[in-house]
């Protein structure tokens, strides 16, 4: 009895301290467990993506971004038709105001409200969870899903999280600990706040996922299957709630090289050696000015993978003006596009571009011009021959098929080039953008669910590109559309959304 009393007396101060801290943080409104960034990083139905806005009945606030200022504030439901946008960073860049204005113009007797729930890095797995919760909380009339670029980015992150929390009991304990305000306040103190990006480009992601997450073809297939199932689940969920669904195929840059090429296991070591010799020979023969930055020509000449922020779309007008004064630069000439993408360039003001954008576009300009000297033509022919022989040895190696496509284009055989560029996308074992496989899955799922309306953005933008080759005129990097292209895509969504709204 004396011992039990001693134990109780020993623990009592700790308990009182904890209760005191919890009450203090409650009174100060700090460390609310309902408002914490989920430890599961959104990969869990229990993560609460929407919380009621305090003091505004019927209003909601998202909690899915790292910084509070990025969260989406949703007003109470009114007589306007509510349209929600779901997707990754591409969707995040869509202008809800633009789509709203286009919808209002298309149906003047009706008012629309467009809410963008796009989240950089999100793929179909978390979009499905977000969508499920949004259908209940926000009661939309129509949802638009534009996803497919991030399936492997998201999978890589999920794998990284799984590595981080190897022991399930530790993970469970941490989830329990997040119910304490004291722990949440401590976490808030320990989490390094991202530096505000008043000047200069946003920081790079901490790691390139492709470096840590690269799959083999049989594994790749699992993620495609999961993508299909997630889209099907989105169809079922929207149907159950009587909400209209627009499914979009996604637009990718066909000149962005594959990320993870792999030889088929049947290619012998000796064949691989011969392959490597041919691969290098093609690089020696092809004129550098035509492909520099598009492919890896050596350790010191890697492919330049542009990032959307290098086009500086969100540069302040004052900064843009300053840059214009300092070094006015003209955009390299690329290809004219077909209506409705013809006319003014779709990109941002070149004065704001980072130098690397000019580096890539200079090459792309020369690549499309195909203005070759006789010696260069000979070099391209030699490179083409070497690449063909390499592909004959290892037909599944995405990078070689991609390079073959480039050489065919330079040699004037655009049809064969487009075919090989498509093929190389599909052979990529860990792609960082949508491709024909993901887009075919979207088409397949839309066909299975007649209540869903398909916007085949991929097909539309191919039709609008010379010879069906979608490139840097439309896409900033591997998958993010230029502002002008986004405006046109919003116009593509309008009839599909209107079709789903009652007259």
């Amino acid at each position, binding site marked *: 009895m004396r011992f039990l009393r001693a134990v109780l007396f020993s623990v009592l101060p700790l308990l009182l301290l904890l209760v005191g801290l919890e009450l203090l943080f409650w009174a100060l409104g700090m460390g609310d467990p309902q408002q914490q960034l989920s430890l599961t990083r959104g990969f869990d139905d229990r993560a609460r993506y929407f919380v009621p806005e305090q003091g505004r009945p019927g209003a909601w606030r998202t909690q899915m971004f790292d910084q509070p200022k990025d969260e989406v504030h949703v007003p109470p439901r009114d007589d306007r038709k509510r349209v929600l946008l779901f997707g990754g960073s591409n969707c995040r860049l869509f202008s809800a105001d633009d789509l709203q204005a286009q919808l209002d113009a298309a149906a003047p007797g009706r008012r629309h409200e467009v809410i963008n729930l796009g989240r950089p890095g999100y793929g179909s797995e978390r979009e499905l969870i977000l969508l499920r919760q949004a259908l209940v909380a926000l009661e939309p009339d129509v949802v638009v899903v534009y996803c497919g670029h991030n399936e492997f980015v998201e999978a890589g992150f999920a794998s990284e999280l799984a590595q981080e929390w190897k022991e399930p009991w530790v993970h469970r304990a941490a989830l329990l*600990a997040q119910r304490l305000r*004291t722990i949440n306040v401590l976490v808030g103190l*320990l989490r390094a706040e991202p530096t505000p990006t008043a000047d200069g480009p*946003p920081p790079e992601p901490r790691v390139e996922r492709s470096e840590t997450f690269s799959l083999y073809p049989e594994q790749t297939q699992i993620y495609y299957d999961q993508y299909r199932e997630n889209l099907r689940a989105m169809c079922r969920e929207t149907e159950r709630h009587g909400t209209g669904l627009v499914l979009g195929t996604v637009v990718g840059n066909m000149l962005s090289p594959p990320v993870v090429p792999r030889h088929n296991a049947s290619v012998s070591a000796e064949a691989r050696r011969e392959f490597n010799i041919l691969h290098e020979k093609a690089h020696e023969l092809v004129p550098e000015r035509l492909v520099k930055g598009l492919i890896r020509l050596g350790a010191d000449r890697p492919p330049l993978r542009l990032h959307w922020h290098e086009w500086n779309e969100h540069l302040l007008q004052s900064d843009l003006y300053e840059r214009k004064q300092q070094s006015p630069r003209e955009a390299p000439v690329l290809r004219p596009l077909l209506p409705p993408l013809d006319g003014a360039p779709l990109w941002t003001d070149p004065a704001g571009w980072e130098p690397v954008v000019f580096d890539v576009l200079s090459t792309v300009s020369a690549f499309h011009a195909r203005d070759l000297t006789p010696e260069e033509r000979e070099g391209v022919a030699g490179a083409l021959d070497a690449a063909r022989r390499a592909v004959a040895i290892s037909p599944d190696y995405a990078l070689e098929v991609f390079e073959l496509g480039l050489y065919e284009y330079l040699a004037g055989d655009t049809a064969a080039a487009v075919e090989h560029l498509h093929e190389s996308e599909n052979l990529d074992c860990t792609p960082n953008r949508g491709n024909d496989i993901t887009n075919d899955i979207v088409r397949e799922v839309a066909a299975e669910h007649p209540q869903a309306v398909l916007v085949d953005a991929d097909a539309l933008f191919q039709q609008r590109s010379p010879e069906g080759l979608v490139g840097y005129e439309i896409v900033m990097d591997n998958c993010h559309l230029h502002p002008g292209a986004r405006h046109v895509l919003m116009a593509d969504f309008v009839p599909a959304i209107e079709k789903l709204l009652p007259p």
Partner: protein
Amino acid sequence: MSALLTFLRTHKLAWILPIVVAALIAGLVAWRIASTPDNPFDYTLR
């Protein structure tokens, strides 16, 4: 109550130690939660 106060006065280590251990554990758990990797592409749009 007076028994508790007497205990706290005479056995300081017995109640300080649990607080110190709990604080260490809380710090460790909080650090573990705080160091969970962020979503890729978590940079802010300006």
